[in-house]
């Protein structure tokens, strides 16, 4: 009897929690849900004048260089950025965790110092520098810059991942006749895989979503990544704004991020737990 009573008061005590938490959940979800609904519903001045349908998405397919082109650009930039970030930070993290060499501490500090310098400060000289390297207006140049901005977090994350692997594991591989490259490939990379996924995930989200770097470094609208293309789309038609096509663009932009995040949530949270964000 007593226990029953306690359970009931506890349940009652939890009701305010669920009311507040659910109310907040509605507020946080509403913009996402509304935008998705609006992108397929009828609006004056859009390709979807009546009824429900994908008229706005068709507008997007035909806009300027076409949705597929922009999706391809974004995919290329994201893939290159992830590959460069993971590749460089994997080797760098291994070097910082397991080797000693002259200039090690200086290089590590310099890498972390990237965090101290504002994005905008570097983009103006990078615009000039990439021009000199004939990488202006190129998706590769953009990916190199985006990977550089990822390096402080990625290098730190990979360094602590390698440091967490027991030395014996590597040594036994070395005794078995693997070189350090063999030990890295056969033993260490499998051991630091969670760190690699975390680094790749952060790099993907940053590259897919970045706006100011392509705005400054890419001048050719054929080469614009998707966020830039959707933002430009709004300014296209003089005076009359196509809200519908923009809403469709937001859906196309958001879906990969939300999917990747929901699938790899655990790995995302690891980025926070590691303290790597503290730089």
């Amino acid at each position: 009897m007593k226990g029953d009573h306690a359970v009931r008061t506890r349940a009652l005590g939890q009701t305010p929690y669920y009311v507040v938490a659910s109310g907040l959940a509605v507020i946080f979800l509403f913009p996402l849900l509304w935008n998705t609904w609006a992108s397929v519903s009828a609006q004056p001045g859009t390709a979807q004048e009546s009824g429900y349908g994908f008229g706005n998405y068709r507008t997007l397919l035909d806009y300027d260089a076409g949705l597929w082109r922009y999706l391809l650009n974004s995919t290329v930039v994201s893939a290159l950025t992830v590959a460069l970030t993971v590749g460089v930070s994997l080797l760098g993290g291994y070097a910082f965790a397991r080797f000693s060499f002259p200039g090690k501490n200086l290089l590590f500090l310099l890498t972390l110092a990237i965090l101290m310098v504002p994005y905008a400060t570097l983009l103006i000289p990078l615009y000039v520098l990439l021009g000199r390297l004939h990488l202006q207006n190129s998706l590769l140049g953009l990916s190199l810059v985006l990977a550089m901005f990822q390096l402080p977090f990625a290098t730190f994350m990979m360094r602590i991942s390698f440091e967490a692997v027991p030395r014996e594991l590597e040594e036994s591989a070395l005794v078995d006749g693997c070189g350090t490259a063999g030990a890295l490939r056969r033993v260490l990379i499998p051991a630091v895989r969670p760190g690699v996924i975390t680094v790749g995930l952060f790099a993907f989200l940053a590259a897919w979503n970045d706006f100011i770097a392509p705005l400054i470094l890419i001048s050719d609208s054929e080469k614009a990544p998707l966020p830039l293309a959707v933002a430009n789309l709004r300014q296209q038609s003089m005076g009359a704004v196509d809200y519908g096509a923009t809403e469709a663009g937001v859906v196309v932009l958001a879906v990969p991020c939300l999917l990747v995040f929901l699938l790899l949530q655990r790995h995302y949270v690891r980025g926070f737990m590691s303290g790597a964000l503290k730089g």
Partner: protein
Amino acid sequence: MQVKTPDRETVEPLVRTERRQRRLWHSRTLQGLGYATPTAVFVAVLFVLPLLLVGQMSLHDWPLLAGDQGANTPENYTDVTDSTLFWPAVRFTLLYTGIVTVVLLGLALLLALLVQESRPGTGFFRTVYFLPGALGLASASLLFWGMYSPTTGPLSRPLEELGLVDGPVSFLGTPTSALLSTVFLVVWKFAGFYMLILLVGLQRIPHELYEAARMDGAGRGQIFRSITLPLLRPSLALSLLLCVTGSLLAFDQFFVLTKGGPDNSTVTVVQLIYREAFQRLDLGTAAALSILVLAALLLLNALQFRGLRHADES
């Protein structure tokens, strides 16, 4: 008496191992250097070099199309401070940073406290609050640009029908409403991100401390003030640093949502860099402004770092 001299057989292996070890050490140093080379190249070419270049550019006359025209020190810097938009932009950026930091971190702390205990459904709520954080800031700004539309957006019509306002609401039409609308967007986008940082901090506080305090008869408010807040300070400090830095460098949200308007009332400092470079086509002045922003941020970081250390000592 025969003195036993070490013969060749025993000495040589010793020498050989030593030599081998030295060679091994050499090769490990070289290998370490090898693995660090890509990082070094990235940092040197894409970070150190641009940093030096922006310094040089800020001291030179450097039109966007013509390139370097030689030194004009310190004209770029005086151009920056003489610009009629400079001080308003600085004031606006500081105002925006102040408002965003207070609202965002306040809400993030409330969210973190709300979802810190695991009960059925907590995981769902955490995920939902964080979800906007997975979006890009530019995407989120485009989304809210649609939401704030007086004609097709979902906010204006209900307010009209409830009789709270007469006529369509212009969320971006006046300087104050444009600022507050942008703050709302940023809070929606980032609250879950800071909630996560604070949640990690909350979960590091040992449970025994709460239990001991409760045994001593401490109330909820008392526990919050004397246990939660002090022990959460590292996470709060990190959030503060990230939030202040991020807000001072605000660009995407204003570029997409307000374009600096109405009447240049929402131009931030970073937007000014962009305008100098790509609308006024003056890279030299843009570089000078970039250097000033860098100096301000370094100063701020140093002050914050010092403040934290001070607080730690007391």
